[in-house]
C-alpha cells in the first residue's frame, strides 16, 4: 500500500492503522449517481464524501457511519464516486485560486449535469466551499453538514437514537473553524450529542472563540512553521482539561489533529476522539 501523506507520522499513521480497525460496512449497497442515472433514477440527496472520507482509513469509518445513518433514515441518496473531485478548498486557502476554480468548474459541471439539488457532506471544508464559494461560479445547491442533517432527522423522528454506550459519559465538542466561525453552526452538533444523553462539557475556548485544530488553510498538507508548540497539542490540552472521556468532532482534519494531540499527551487510553456520526451510528435503534 502506497501512502504519501505530506504529514508523515500524522495522516500516514492513521492510514496505516487499517488492519486494526475493520470497517463497519453497511449491508445495503450505496449507489453512485452514474449507476442511478443509468436506471433513469434521481436521488434526493448527494452524499459528498470528500477526499479524506474517501481515502483516509480513519475518516472512512466515519463515512460508513454517515452512510448507515442515511440508510437508516431511509434517505434516497447516492455518491458521485469517481466523478467526485477535491472541491479545491486546500488549493484556494493556499493561494492557488486558479486550481481552486478549475476544480470548482469540473465539480459544478458534474453536479449540474445530474441536476443535483441537495448535498450532504461530512467535511466542513467541502461544506463551506460548496455552500459559499460555488454559487458564484454557477453551482447552486442546498448544502448541509452531516451534523445539521442528523439533527433534523432526529427532530423529524426519522432517526431514533439512544444513549447506549455514551449515556452519562463526559463528552466535549471541538468546534471546527469551517463549521463554527465560518458558518455559524454551533448548536446542531451539540444538540445531536444531547440526544445521546451524554454529559456535555465545554472547553474554555469554544463556539465562536474555539481554537483551531491547526489543520485549516492547507496546514494539513505541510509541516507547521517553527514555534514554541503545536496547535493541536494546545487544543488537545484544552480538551483534556474538561475531564471528558470523548472528544467529539465533525471534521476529518480535526479528527486527525485531535487524535494526534491526544497521543502526544499520552492520553489515548483515557480519551477517545470520535466523529458525531460514529457516536450516532452506535446509538441507532
Amino acid at each position, binding site marked *: *500500500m502506497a501512502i504519501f501523506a505530506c504529514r508523515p507520522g500524522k495522516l500516514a499513521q492513521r492510514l496505516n492503522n487499517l488492519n486494526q480497525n475493520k470497517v463497519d460496512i453497511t449491508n445495503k449497497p450505496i449507489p453512485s449517481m452514474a449507476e442511478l442515472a443509468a436506471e433513469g433514477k434521481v436521488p434526493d440527496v448527494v452524499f459528498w464524501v470528500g477526499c479524506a472520507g474517501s481515502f483516509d482509513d480513519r475518516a472512512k469509518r466515519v463515512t460508513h457511519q454517515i452512510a448507515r445513518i442515511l440508510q437508516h433514515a431511509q434517505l434516497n441518496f447516492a455518491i458521485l464516486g*469517481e466523478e467526485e473531485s477535491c472541491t479545491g478548498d486546500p*488549493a484556494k486557502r493556499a*493561494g*492557488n485560486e486558479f486550481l481552486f476554480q478549475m476544480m470548482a468548474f469540473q465539480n459544478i459541471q458534474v453536479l449540474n449535469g445530474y441536476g443535483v439539488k441537495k448535498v450532504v457532506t461530512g467535511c466542513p471544508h467541502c461544506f463551506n466551499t460548496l455552500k459559499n464559494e460555488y454559487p458564484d*461560479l454557477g453551482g447552486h445547491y442546498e448544502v448541509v453538514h452531516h451534523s445539521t442533517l442528523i439533527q433534523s432527522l432526529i427532530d423529524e423522528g426519522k432517526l431514533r437514537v439512544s444513549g447506549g454506550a455514551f449515556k452519562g459519559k463526559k463528552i466535549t465538542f471541538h468546534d471546527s*473553524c469551517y463549521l463554527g466561525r465560518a458558518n455559524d453552526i454551533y448548536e446542531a452538533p451539540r444538540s445531536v450529542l444531547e440526544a445521546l444523553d451524554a454529559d456535555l462539557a465545554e472547553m474554555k475556548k469554544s463556539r465562536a472563540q474555539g481554537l483551531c485544530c491547526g489543520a485549516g488553510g492547507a496546514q494539513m498538507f*505541510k509541516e507547521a*512553521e517553527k514555534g514554541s508548540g503545536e496547535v493541536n497539542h494546545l487544543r488537545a490540552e484544552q480538551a483534556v482539561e474538561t475531564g471528558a472521556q470523548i472528544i467529539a468532532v465533525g471534521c476529518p482534519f480535526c479528527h486527525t489533529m485531535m487524535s494526534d494531540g491526544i497521543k502526544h499527551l499520552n492520553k489515548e487510553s483515557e480519551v477517545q476522539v470520535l466523529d458525531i456520526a460514529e457516536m450516532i451510528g452506535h446509538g441507532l435503534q
Partner: protein
Amino acid sequence: MVEQFIFIAMLAVGIGLFVGRIRKIRRNIFLGRPQTINDRKAERWKTMARVALGQSKMVVRPLAGFFHILIYVGFVLINIEVLEILLDGITGSHRIFAPFLGGFYVVAIGFFEVLALLVMLACIVFLVRRLAGIPARLSSNQVKGWAHTDAMLILGIELVLMSALLLMNAAEGAMPNASVAPFLVSGFICPWLSGLSEPTLHLIERTAWWFHAAGILAFLNYLPFSKHFHIALAFPNVWYSKLEPKGKFFNHEAVKKEVELMMNPAADPYAAPTEGAEPIKFGAKDVVDLSWKQLLDAYSCTECGRCSSECPAHQTGKLLSPRKIMMDTRDRLEEVGRNIDTHGVGHSDGKSLLGDFITEEELWACTTCNACTQACPVNIDPLSIIMDLRRELVLEQSKAPGSLTAMFNNVENNGAPWPFSPADRGNWRNGSTT
C-alpha cells in the same frame, strides 16, 4: 475681544491642520484597489449600531470592555461640555448653556464630572495594566517602541484633559460670588482652593479653560497620527465590513475569466477585454494592490492585539501575528504616502509590503481559522490580506512551500490532495482500503 480673536484663530488653525491630515489619510486609503461595497444597507447600519456604537465585541472580554465603555461614553457625552467651551470661546460668553438650562445646568455638569472621574479611573486602570504588561498582548514585541509610547500618550493626555476640566470647574465653584453653585465632583476640590483670592481663582479657571480648549485641539490633531484614530474610523470600518459568512472567500474575477477560457469550450477567446486594460494582478505585493477597504482596516486598527491573542499560530509561538499584519500594512501605507508627498506619484522606493514588512514564514503559518476576524472589536479582516499575499506568492511568484506544491499537483492530477487514484474514490463502499 482679543481673547475671542485668539480663540477663533486657534480653532481655525487646529481644524485646518486636522482636515489637511484627514485628506492625506483619505488619499492614502484610496491608493488601494477599487471595491464596491453598497449592498445590504439596512444590515450594515444594524451591524454598525451593534458592533461600533454598541461595543458588542468589546465586552467579550468583560473587564476591559467595561472600562473601555466608560471612556467611550465619557468621551461622547463630555463633548457636550466641549461644545459649550467652543461656543464660549467663539462668542466670548461664559457658560453659554447655563441661562437656558437654569437649575438643570448644575445637574448636567455634575453628571459630566462623574463621567470625567470614571474616564480618569478607566485611564488609570489601563495605564497600570499596560505598565504591568497584563495581558501579554499589551507587552509583546510588536507594541514596544512607538506603539507603546502612543498608547501611554493617549491615556496620559486623556487624564490631563479631564483633570483640567475638573480644576476649571473647581476654581469656578470656589469663587465667593460664583454664578453657578459648586458641582458634584469638583465641589470636593473647592475646599483646597478656598484660601486663594478671587483673581487667583479666576486665573486658575481661565488657565484651565484655555489649557483644556487648546489641549482638545492638540489631541484632535494627534489622533490621525495615532492608533487612537479608531474612535473615528471604527464606525465606517464596521459599516463596510464583510457581511457574508466568514468562511466565504471571494472568487477572483480575473481568474474566473481565465478558467472560463481554459475549461469552457463555448467561451469566446476573442471577446473584447474590459475597459482599462491594466495588467491583471492575482495577488497583492504592496499596499496599493490591496483594496481600499483593507487599507481602511489598517488605519482603523488600535493595536489591542485581541486578534493575535486568539490566533492559533501566534499562541503556539509562530511568527504570524494578525496585529502585526495590520500594523505593517499601515506603516507601509504611511511610507508610500510620504514617498508621494516628497517625490510625487509614480516614485518607487523598491520596497513592498510583502518581503520588506511581512515575511513568507508569517503568511504560511495561517490556518485561515477566522479567530482574528472574530476577535476584532471593529471587524478588521487581517485574513483577507494574508490571502492576497499568499496568492501573490503562489500565482505571481511561484513561491509555495514544496509540500504545498505537491498537494497542488495531487489535486490537479488525482482530484485529491493525496496521490490516490480517482478511480478508487468509491472503494470505501466495499471495505477496500486502497
